[in-house]
């Protein structure tokens, strides 16, 4: 059950919906160890994404992800705008001309996205950032794809790992981003960017399953 441009767009819309639903939670998390805007920033960005997807529907998966990347960069601001924006742009490049994503193409896109965040933000695992959700997600996706799983299953594995990864940020002392200014006081709170990464991947995975089920029924 490969994943078409339509599935990608559906997944992105599901991601946007989950961000809107969790706007206040993300603001609250950022209020504890940052500046209380992550939910607002992401919500502004993904609303813009949905508007763009509606007004000029992309024709390939790569075009869809590229549109997300440029829209986030030009509407989010803050740290998360360029970081998520770069992640989607790099993922788009990794997809190339592919019309339908399978498990291993997806791994390549995820990996490229993560490397984009690393390149721009210079964070490593354990710094209490979105990398702590992304990096285990990539690993889990790889393992899943290597065992031959399809796109939906790979995404589900990535989402699970991201969720666990985000939870581990709670005990960490931040070394990057705004939370680092708090020093030891940053421990005891989940990183908002790791949480939004986990939320997005979970929404993509759920959409993938729905799409997969639809595909199986077709």
């Amino acid at each position: 059950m490969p994943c078409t441009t339509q599935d990608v767009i559906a997944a992105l819309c599901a991601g946007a919906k989950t961000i809107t639903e969790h706007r206040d939670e993300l603001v609250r998390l950022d209020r504890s160890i940052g500046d209380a805007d992550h939910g607002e920033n992401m919500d502004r960005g993904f609303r813009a994404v949905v508007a763009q997807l509606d007004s000029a529907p992309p024709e390939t998966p790569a075009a869809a992800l590229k549109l997300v990347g440029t829209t986030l960069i030009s509407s989010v601001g803050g740290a998360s705008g360029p970081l998520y924006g770069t992640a989607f742009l790099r993922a788009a490049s990794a997809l190339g001309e592919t019309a339908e994503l399978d498990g291993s193409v997806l791994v390549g896109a995820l990996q490229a996205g993560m490397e984009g965040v690393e390149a721009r933000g210079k964070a490593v695992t354990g710094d209490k950032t979105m990398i702590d959700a992304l990096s285990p997600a990539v690993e889990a996706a790889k393992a899943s794809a290597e065992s031959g799983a399809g796109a939906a299953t790979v995404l589900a594995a990535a989402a699970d790992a991201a969720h666990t990864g985000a939870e581990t940020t709670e005990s960490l002392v931040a070394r990057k981003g705004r939370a680092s200014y708090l020093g030891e006081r940053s421990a005891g709170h989940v990183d908002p960017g790791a949480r939004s990464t986990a939320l997005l991947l979970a929404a993509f995975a759920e959409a993938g399953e729905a799409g997969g089920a639809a595909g199986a029924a077709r």
Partner: protein
Amino acid sequence: MKKILNEPANVVGDALRGMALAHPDLVRVRTDPALIVRADAPVRDTVAVISGGGSGHEPLHGGFVGPGMLSAAVPGPVFTSPTPDAVQAAISQAEGGAGTLLVVKNYTGDVLNFETAAELASAEGTEVRTVVVQDDVAVRDSTHTAGRRGVGGTVLLEKIVGAAAQQGTDLDGCHRLAERVSERVRSMGMALTAPTVPHVGEPSFTLDEDEMEIGIGIHGEPGRERVPLDNADGIVRRLLDPVLEDLPFTEGDEVLLLTNSMGGTPLMELYLAHGVAERLLAERGIRVQRRLVGPYTTSLEMQGLSMTLLKLDAELTELWDSPVHTPALHW
């Protein structure tokens, strides 16, 4: 939430429109993307000095746009760095053919967004340099962290570099000067109360009646430590001591002292704290040659203050003294 607002989501644009009406002779504004430029921009053959960052720190940066200081300012949403397109738009409005110096406060978001803008503008043929201000000694510095924040020292840098640009200094010269100011300026802040971000609707943190935060930033993030409320002498000492040790500033140094309100501090208390700071510096043999007292780098309605010291020399003093004509600084 107690604020004088219409639609919270429109606060930045609404405020910009009011600002433009208040200072028609000094600035022009645009609201989408949001930016503030000198009324006479672009000034031909003069380096454009442009700064920006999240809104909520007024008069930083828009209040410093005008002859002798900034060419343009790019206000993001409240406490959120502006996007690269906004920065690029400001560059293209302000650029007069002699290149652009971006003054960026060291926050991950600001650095990344301005960096992207600089790349895009360079690709279009504009020469762009960047100085990253990181004067907040409350943050432990290390290559493994996000590094120190840019806070009150930004105002001093913008004034001095803006003066140099106005006098015709080229981009290289402005950039070197900016780095030099950045190396010589240090700050530290404290808060008695937290700010309330319009789109959040409640205070960014809560403090008991007998507590204060030391080492706060300007985005409503809590500080390094929460300690019992102290008197003015104790508060000022807690800010000045780490500032002095860091550079260090030593006996005989000539300095500019900025006693900065975080926004909601009564001027009476600010002057009082300034007097304490001058006394403590005199005791150490540090000579305050210039001073600035007021709300210059704020965090909405936060009560509290920051102290900034800049080590002066003849060049910096002359540039500080040279005329400036902006909504918030004027001489």
